[in-house]
């Protein structure tokens, strides 16, 4: 249960990065007219906010002190006017921003998801599911926050602060200068706070990532934990991370608890200063009293956005970091891409040819070394050999899950690199060694939601895979729910289901990678009988360890340590007295000489 770190997780972003911002904005481009409108609303709304205290000042200085009731009425009406206008502006601004943000996020999310679908297996092996999930879901959510409260909110806050400063300067520049004197200090303080907050944020993200990874693996591996009695250890591990997380967050609280009160003190200090200095001005008849009231209201309205800006800094930064990670993902090239003009063989028959194929998962450690063979259309071939020899890797190379290093693979005379990947794979019916079932119903697992497969075909495929009788006795039959990964089915039943899936897709080339290794022999034989008819003029590649299951093949390839060791029919290989004949002898002996052979567990 390691919570291994990856370089991308270390990206924490700056407050603002023009290049990234440019890319983010590109997603908003289709909606730019709406955005301009919302910006306009924002400016107008800020205006109404600024007008309030100003109107109060006019009311006091021009009408209240003069005893002009009609004038006061006018001002109150104007005040009400700004309030109602403000309502519409604010509503328009919020709604439009949210609308565009949601649209852009939907586009982005879909793009990421689609991008992931096209990645090669090497990439997907490297990146844990949890991390890619975070990219597609959480990082996009973070970015969304930038849209809904971040950018626009920041702009609004900035408008407000500058607007207020401007209004104050207009009202009385001398008093305004005194009032604003503390500003540089505040800016300095916020910078200090930001730096600290960033460190905490950075750490909390790291720890949260570890927490999630641990959680996911613990839940997925609960059966293993429980059957090994490792609950205690698992708990300790989790609680360690959980505690780290708390401690980081507690540190964050301290910075917040310091910063926000200090800002409030500044606000009070400024008010005190205004009162004192303004009072002197008034006494010297250089100022009207309404100005002071307006100033105090302005000051109170000014410190909210200042505090917000510091808080939104976190949002900005989180969004920058998220977008950097998202773009890093989107920038990973599709390693295995479709050719611009895919070649299509004139006729699809199902011939496969490997020419000196080399494959390595890690550079410099070839797993396949110069594999060369040819399978004619309609031929049935078995791949046998010791475990870890590279059989599954041959299949993976054929499906183009991994790009081969050297050599070439031809399907119907066309290099698979010139095929359209999806077209190629549609022709190959693959039963994977690692069975995977989706949650949903049984029928959905057979068709994978492909609407082209009819109910009839589902039933036929299940019958051929000899799982139909089991399915039909279930209460809901083909509509019976399957749990995540099919955990409530027996292992053999899972294999049969995924076998049925391959058959339902009616492929030209059927590839079975240990497809019936956990299925009882009776069922296996029945399936073979059923396949005989089905495979009549189709190609088949069959990997199996039980030699009795490959009785019907035309040719056998023996794969050993990444090389094609031997090749030929059963008799030819036996006559050769090589690896195959040894395997064969072993199995033969095992069955012939009862409980006292070398294989026997109890001597």
């Amino acid at each position, binding site marked *: 249960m390691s919570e291994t770190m990856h370089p991308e997780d270390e990206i924490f972003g700056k407050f603002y990065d023009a290049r990234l911002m440019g890319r983010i904005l590109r997603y908003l481009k289709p909606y730019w007219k709406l955005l301009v409108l919302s910006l306009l609303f924002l400016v107008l709304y800020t205006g109404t906010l600024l007008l309030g205290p100003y109107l*109060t000042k006019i009311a006091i200085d021009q009408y209240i002190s003069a005893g002009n009731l009609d004038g006061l009425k006018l001002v109150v009406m104007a005040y009400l006017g700004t309030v109602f206008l403000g309502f519409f502006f604010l509503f328009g601004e919020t709604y439009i921003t949210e609308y565009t943000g949601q649209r852009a996020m939907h586009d982005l999310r879909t793009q990421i998801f689609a991008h992931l679908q096209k990645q090669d297996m090497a990439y997907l092996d490297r990146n844990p599911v949890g991390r890619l999930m975070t990219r597609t879901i959480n990082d996009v959510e973070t970015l969304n926050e930038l849209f809904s409260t971040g950018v626009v909110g920041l702009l609004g806050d900035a408008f407000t602060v500058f607007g207020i400063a401007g209004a104050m300067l207009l009202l009385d520049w001398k008093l305004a200068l005194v009032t604003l004197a503390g500003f540089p200090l505040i800016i300095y303080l916020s910078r200090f706070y930001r730096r600290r907050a960033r460190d905490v944020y950075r750490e909390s993200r790291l720890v949260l990532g570890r927490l999630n990874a641990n959680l996911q693996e613990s839940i997925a591996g609960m059966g293993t934990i429980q059957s090994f009695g490792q609950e205690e250890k698992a708990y300790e591990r989790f609680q360690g991370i959980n505690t780290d997380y708390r401690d980081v967050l507690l540190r964050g609280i301290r910075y917040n608890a310091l910063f926000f*009160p200090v800002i409030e003190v500044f606000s009070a200090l400024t008010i005190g200063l205004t009162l004192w200095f303004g009072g002197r001005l008034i006494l010297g008849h250089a100022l009207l009293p309404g100005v002071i009231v307006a100033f105090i209201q302005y000051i109170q309205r000014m410190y909210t956005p200042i505090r917000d800006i510091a808080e939104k800094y976190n949002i900005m930064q989180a969004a920058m970091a998220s977008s950097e990670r998202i773009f890093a993902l989107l920038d990973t090239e599709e390693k295995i891409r479709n050719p611009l003009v895919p070649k299509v063989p004139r006729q699809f028959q199902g011939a496969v040819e490997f020419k000196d194929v080399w494959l390595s998962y890690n550079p410099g450690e070839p797993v396949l070394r110069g594999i060369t063979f040819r399978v004619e259309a309609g031929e049935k071939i078995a791949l046998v050999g010791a475990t870890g020899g590279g059989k599954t890797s041959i299949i993976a190379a054929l499906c183009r899950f991994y790009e081969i290093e050297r050599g070439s693979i031809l399907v119907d005379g066309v290099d698979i690199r010139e095929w359209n990947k999806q077209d190629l794979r549609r022709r190959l019916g693959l039963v994977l060694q690692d069975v995977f079932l989706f949650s949903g119903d049984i029928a959905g697992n057979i068709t994978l939601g492909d609407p082209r497969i009819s109910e009839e075909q589902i039933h036929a495929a299940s019958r051929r895979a000899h799982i139909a009788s089991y399915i039909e006795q279930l209460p809901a039959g083909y509509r019976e729910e399957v749990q995540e990964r099919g955990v409530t089915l027996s292992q053999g039943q899972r294999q049969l289901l995924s076998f049925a899936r391959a058959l339902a897709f009616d492929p030209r080339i059927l590839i079975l990678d240990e497809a019936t290794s956990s299925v009882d022999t009776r069922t296996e034989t029945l399936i073979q009988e059923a396949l005989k008819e089905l495979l009549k003029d189709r190609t088949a590649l069959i990997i199996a360890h039980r030699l009795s299951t490959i009785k019907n093949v035309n040719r056998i390839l023996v794969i050993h340590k990444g090389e094609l060791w031997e090749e030929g029919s059963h008799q030819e290989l036996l006559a050769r007295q090589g690896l195959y004949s040894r395997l064969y002898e072993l199995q033969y002996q095992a069955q012939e000489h*009862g409980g006292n052979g070398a294989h026997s567990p109890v001597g």
Partner: protein
Amino acid sequence: MIVRYRLLLIAGVVALIATDLMGMAIPWLIKGGIDAIIGKGGVSPSLIKYPLMIVGAALLQALLRYFWRMNIFGFSRRIERDLRGEVFAHLLKLPLAYFQHMKTGDLMSRLTNDMQSMRELMGFGSLAIIDTAVIITGSLSLMIAIDPVLTFWSLLCLPFISFSVRFFGNRIFQKSWDVQQHLSLLSTYVQENLSGIRVVQAYAQEENQIRGFQRLSAEYRRKNLWLATLWSVLWPLMRIFAGISAAIVLWLGGRKVMQGAMTLGEFAAFNGYLAMLTWPLIAVGHVVNQYQRGAAALSRIIEILDVPVAPGYRESELPTPTEPIRGDVEIRNLNFSYGDGHPPALRGISLKIPAGATCGIIGETGSGKSTLVHLLLRLFEPPPGAVFIDSTDVTTIPLPRLKAAIGFVSQDIFLFSDTIRENILFGYRDADREALEESARIAEILPSIRGFTRQFDTILGERGVRLSGGQKQRTALARAIVKNPPVLILDDAFSSLDTETEDDILNHLREFMSKRTTILISHRISTVKGADMILYMRKGEIIERGIHEELLNRRGAYYRLHQRQQLTREVDEMPRREGPR
């Protein structure tokens, strides 16, 4: 849990109340300051007095504020961590069936997102409740002290505020619940898609999957937009009410100042308190909201805690015996079903395996072989009085003792994304290097490991994706062997191995197994034929039992199976190679 940190909470609340009261004093001082300037005339010491008092009050307030923030937020974070730990500890004890019917994504979301909502309820929620109460009473009484009539008029909008908050609050709660739920759906979709990406790509179903995702994402967008619409009406609406109140005060208050019934300072202070009131009034709705969300989250968490732990984890008063388990296994008339509505998975199973003996189980797909050994391990709970180890009912054996005694290789192998070393030592961390290598050797995985550049430190990737099928099985085998248990259960543990490797392993294991009770499940007769007893299972029942020869002589199901697996030397049975067409 709350009790543990009650001092923290109490201190925090007291500080919070004090902070709020201090905040209330500041407009009062401003009022004094303004009146001192305009009312009296002539430079007086009071000109500097009020500003100084304001700053002093603000400093004190800052101190108090620091204190409550540390306490209340600290409280909520500590509670969060403790509760999360508790829920996790509970999860570890839940029956396996629970995890089979819950989605991983859903459980994760409860332990992270819901925990966070709960924390916010504890932190901001308690803050808002207290804040609201103190500020409303404080501001109101001060406003009344300044001018009761004006207070009445200024609060004319109050009913509207509480009405719209109630109206929108409920809907917002509903919608945000929807959104949360849908987000979890979206995550689960991505998780499953990525876990099964090989299948998706192998069947060229990418477009299909993308369409599915797009549908879900569009729905999510729609739900979010609904929520946003509600918010974008509610907030501006609140502002309107606040604005109307302010206009009323400006009008009526202005008149009073003109008439000399009110000083300008009082007017300013009144405005200040009114402004202070707006937030808590809005917050009332917010609090209700947050409370509901937090409560919903909490109920999702409690739901987990309410699931009863698997019987094995319940406290038992029985003393743990000290003598080691020998490994006599006995099953008496065991019937088992996975729950109501499920057909029985096992029917009338009885068997006896003396310590040190080997029992082979062979049988048809779905016949209950795995179920049987799961019951022995109490991964699912067997009925009492049916399964015994050393003549003790397993339901009364303390779990740690039981699990330490059994080495289990599951049919469905799970490896952690850690190093090979950590994976092998998973069940027995005290093993030394020699034991590690020895078990790897017995399981025949050592040569493969030697082939890796980083040897035992090779990282396996999620669920062991970087290993071949057979390598995974052998790693799991080594993991069971290193425990050195008196009982060894291998559930189809050789299915992905070639005969030669299997043979080597069985040879290595021979000595190991001779002293241990072993249960070997397999589909291959060659694996079980040497066992001291062989069971043949079909549809949850043992239909034949005996040693290899006996079973062959019986000419029953076992015999037919044997015939099917026969390899023949007869050359002409193999079809000749057909030439290319």
